Every structure is written in structure tokens, then in C-alpha cells.
């Protein structure tokens, strides 16, 4: 599906615009907030999916990287007068470099070992976040004061929660496009060859090291942007949002959503944030919700190897095929 302005892409564009304009109108304040969160974590899931689908590499530290991105945005917010979008991009860049740094061990290993390196990083970040918390307008490098959080700037046109949701939808759409474009450019080809055989890729002159780092940097970048968006949404961050266990959970949900299509990342985000909010709104206790959630997770991993997105798209395309078969 190369990016051309054919009917399909135009249709997608129109759909996205319609969602941006209309969707927030339909939701109450509660669900505006929930959907904002869900989409933000879709972005994080997108990063996980990319490295797993393209290179078979597993990242169990994505939530920690979201925290890093959020930390950078809050730090910039209190230290500078930069506009929100600039801070967001800077947060993405810083997180991208940390993501690439985490990937250094990945150059020589993959599979479970790599997953565990990243899990150890997530564990370490969890304790750092707890100990230093997130800047809230205090003095010094850590910027933490014994006070309630100050104001986090939002873009001028996205002050209200509904407009901020529109901003998040746009940011997610842009990131999905940028990540999607990679598949049709040099990195995508290099990843595909590397996945097939690293030796062959090297023999063909592909700089395997560089492109592996690039994948992780890209993944880190979207995590960083997600963190920045989250900081803007909540106006502050708390260490409790960035537990190591949640990084494992996000990876699991990315698998459940489906890693081979961007829709899978959206589904992962919805499962991660919308489903718990729904269960809570139904008045289920946190414990029962956890049991249901765990069972659903297990069931989905066991029964849908292509993920929910894979099943959906499979179902749609089989309907399409039936339709075209009658045309013949």
C-alpha cells in the first residue's frame, strides 16, 4: 500500500478529519479524557509493534520510555517558554536517543534475552521515577517541589479537553503516517532484509547496526511523544503511571491488537486504557476487573496470533474478495 493519493488514501484522510472534528463532540468529559489516554498509549504501542513486526525484537521498556518523554516535556515546560509542539518534538528526540541506547545490547541478541534487558531497564526506571518524581515547577535539575503541580502549557488552540483530544488525534495520525512511510523507504527494506537473514543483509551492503538502532530510535521517539502528550493531558505525571509490569502488559496488548497493522496499535491502546475505564464505570471492583482483563488477555494471545487487527482486516478482505469474485 504505497502512499499515493488514490481513492483509498483520500478516504482515510477524510475519515481522520471527520473523526477529529466530530468525535470529541459525541463524548462526555469523562470519555474525552479516557479516549485521549487510550490514543496516547496507542502511540506507545505503535512503537512496540514496529520493532517487533519489522525486526522481531521485543521491547519491554516502552512504558518507561513514555515516562522519559513525559519527564523531558515537563522539565522543558518549567525551564523554558517553548511552545508545546516544540517541546513535544524535543521530548521525542531525547527519548529516541535513550531508546537507541537501550538497543545497543540488541545488536548482538534478540528474543527473550533482549526482552529481558529492556525489562531490567524498565525496572530501574520505575525506581528512579519513584525517587525523583516528575518536575512540578520546583527548583533545580529535578524540578520537584513540595507543592501542587504548576500549569503545563497546551497548544493555544487546544486548551480545552475536547480540543486537546483533537490535537492528540492529529499527532497520532501524523506519527502513524511517518512510521508507515518507513516501510516503503530505505529503513523498511533494510529491516525486511535483516529479518530474513542478517548475514545476507550485511552481504548486500545494508548497515544492519544502523538500521536496528534506527528502529529502536523510532520506537523511542513515538514513546517520547506519547509521554509528552500524556503530560499535557494530565497537566502532571506520577511515578505510579510507569510501572515495569505495565511495560510487559503493553507489549502483550500490542500482540493482542496485532503488530502488522497500525490499527492493531489503536486497538492495543483502547484495551490498555478504555477497557479498564469501562469496567470501572460499570462499577466492577478493581480485583474482578483484573481477573476479566487477565483472562481476556490470555484468551486473545492464545486464539488470535495475527492479533485482533489481523482478524478484522482478514474478515474485511474476505468480504471484499467475495464481492470481486461475483464481479468476475
Amino acid at each position, binding site marked *: 500500500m504505497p502512499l499515493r493519493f488514490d481513492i483509498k488514501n483520500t478516504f482515510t484522510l477524510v475519515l481522520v478529519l471527520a473523526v477529529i472534528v466530530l468525535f470529541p463532540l459525541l463524548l462526555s468529559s469523562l470519555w474525552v479524557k479516557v479516549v485521549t489516554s487510550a490514543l496516547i498509549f496507542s502511540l506507545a504501542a505503535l512503537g512496540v509493534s514496529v520493532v517487533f513486526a519489522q525486526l*522481531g525484537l521485543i521491547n519491554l521498556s516502552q512504558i518507561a520510555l513514555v515516562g522519559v518523554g513525559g519527564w523531558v516535556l515537563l522539565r522543558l515546560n518549567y525551564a523554558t517558554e517553548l511552545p508545546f509542539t516544540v517541546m513535544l518534538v524535543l521530548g521525542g528526540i531525547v527519548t529516541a536517543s535513550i531508546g537507541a541506547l537501550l538497543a545497543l545490547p540488541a545488536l*548482538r541478541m*534478540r528474543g527473550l534475552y533482549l526482552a529481558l534487558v529492556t525489562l531490567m531497564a524498565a525496572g530501574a526506571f520505575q525506581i528512579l521515577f519513584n525517587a525523583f518524581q516528575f518536575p512540578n515547577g520546583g527548583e533545580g535539575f529535578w524540578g520537584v517541589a513540595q507543592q501542587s503541580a504548576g500549569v503545563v502549557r497546551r497548544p493555544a488552540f487546544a486548551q480545552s479537553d475536547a480540543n486537546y483530544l483533537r490535537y492528540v488525534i492529529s499527532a497520532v495520525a501524523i506519527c502513524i503516517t511517518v512510521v508507515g512511510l518507513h516501510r516503503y523507504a530505505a529503513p523498511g527494506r533494510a529491516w525486511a532484509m535483516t529479518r530474513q537473514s*542478517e548475514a545476507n543483509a550485511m552481504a548486500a551492503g545494508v548497515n544492519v547496526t544502523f538500521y536496528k538502532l534506527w528502529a529502536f530510535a523510532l520506537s523511542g521517539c513515538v514513546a517520547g511523544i506519547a509521554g509528552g502528550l500524556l503530560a499535557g493531558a494530565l497537566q502532571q505525571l506520577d511515578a505510579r503511571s510507569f510501572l515495569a*509490569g505495565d511495560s510487559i502488559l503493553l507489549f502483550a496488548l500490542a500482540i493482542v491488537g496485532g503488530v502488522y497493522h497500525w490499527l492493531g496499535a489503536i486497538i492495543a491502546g483502547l484495551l490498555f486504557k478504555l477497557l479498564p475505564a469501562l469496567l470501572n464505570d460499570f462499577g466492577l471492583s478493581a*480485583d474482578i476487573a483484573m481477573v476479566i*482483563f*487477565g483472562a481476556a488477555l*490470555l484468551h486473545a494471545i492464545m486464539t488470535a496470533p495475527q492479533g485482533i487487527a489481523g482478524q478484522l482486516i482478514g474478515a474485511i478482505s474476505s468480504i471484499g474478495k467475495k464481492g470481486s469474485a461475483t464481479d468476475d
Partner: protein
Amino acid sequence: MLKVYGLFLVSGLAVGSLYALGGIGLVILRRSTGVLNFAYGAIAAVSAMMCWQVLQWGAPGPIAWGIAILVGVTLSVFYGRLLAPSLAWREPAVKAVATLGYTLILLGMVGVIWDDSPRKLVLPTDKEGVWILGVRVTVTRLIAFGSSIFVVFAMIQFLDRTRIGLNMRALADNRDHSALLGIPVIKVETMAWTISGALAGFTGLMFGDLVRLDPTVITFMVIPATAAAICGRLTSLPWTLIGGLSIGVLEAMLTLYKPLAPLRAMTPFIVAGCVILWMQAGQRLTFAAEE
């Protein structure tokens, strides 16, 4: 000053043996079945809570401990026999994260059954103790330390000397070939889930007694226990033991260095990270076909 070091050495070994016990249980299972079981901690938590419950009902200690281990075995084998097989052909990492689903189910069920009240698990061995280098070490701690060494020793003997041990090693080396050779894969795997479950039950008992009887804390101890397992490259039991013990000692010693003392809990992750980097320091090729 030497006395102070001794103090923290002994204290660190006690905690280290808990990390080691967790790591050993993970490694045994992972070697034979290829599953890294993140639900290990949750199984340990349920076992510890059941033990407390049975003691509350007035049952004698040994029965309660037996039940803790039985619960561990049951929960572990339940997953191993009923749920794990449908994931047998998936990537190791997917097998590992699937156990997170089981973790959430178990942790949620614990929350449904037992409300959030203060509890304490007491074993009779807590009352007795010996003084080592200025620290009083209870018999429970000695048991935790001794059993971590004993389990490693016994497992090595078991793997070397018995038929099923041989099968387990074969399965660890190559699963498909083992099946072709007619090794009863299911039986051997069930054995591994049983041993690992029993260890989880025992680890839960020790954690509940020596750290605190809090299901969430016990559930997530699996993450530092994984760090110990990494020190043994997920395969070597003696190195897992050494890894766990050194993490414990280092963590305790950091107490003496004030700026880092509040961050001591990072020790397992830092140690595991260094071990991984060191492990692959010799490798140059990037052809990483297998994990």
C-alpha cells in the same frame, strides 16, 4: 567497621537467597519448557495467602506449609497442562508475556478472596535463631539460604542421574529432536511445571514470612527474581544462585553509602544489565539466529 560489613553481608545473603530461590524456579521451568513464567510471583502469592488462611483456621503448621506447596504445584501444573500447550509454537517472548495474563487473573482473585487487612505469616522457626557476625539469623532465614543451595545441588544430581532428568536436559537442548526420539514430552514438561510450582509455593512461604505478607509485593518479586535468573543466563542453576546471592549482598551493602541508599532497590536490574553486557562482550557477530 568490619563488624558493620559483616552485619550487612549476613543480612544481604538472607535476602539474596530469596531472589535466588525465585530465580531457580524460573530457570528450571524455562530450561525444560521454554516458558519464562512471569506468573511465578503470583503463584507464590496465592500459596502464601492460602498458608496464612489455613493457619487462621487453626490447622497445624506442617499441614499449612504442605498446602502452600500443593497450591503452588496445582496452579503451576494447571497453567502448564491446560493453557501453555496452545502457545507451544509461538515465540519465547510471546509465551512469556502470556503468563502475565495468568498473573493478573491470580492477583485479581487474591484481591477478591482476601480483603486488604494487615496480616503476618509466622513460622515456628522464626522464634529460634543464631547470632552470626552480630546479626541474629532466624532458623527461617537459614532454611531459605540452605534450601536455595540444596535445591541447586539436588537439581543438578536429578538432571545428571535420573532418566527424567536426562529427558529434561534433552528437551532443553532441542525440543523437536527430543520428540522425535520418543521422549515423553508432556510427562517431562509436567514434571518441570510441578517442580517449579512447588518451588513457587515454597518461595511464597519464605517471602510472606521474611519480607511481608502482601500479595502485590510477592507477585512482583518475579522481576528481581528474573534478574537473578539472567545472571544464570536462564540456564545455569549455580550461576543463578550466585547471581541472586550477590544481588542481595550488594543491595544490603549499598545501605552504607548514603547517597545511593534510597535507590538500593535498583541493584537487581543494574547487576542483571551488567551481566548481560559482559556475557556478550566476547561476541562480535550480529548473526543472532537463536535467542
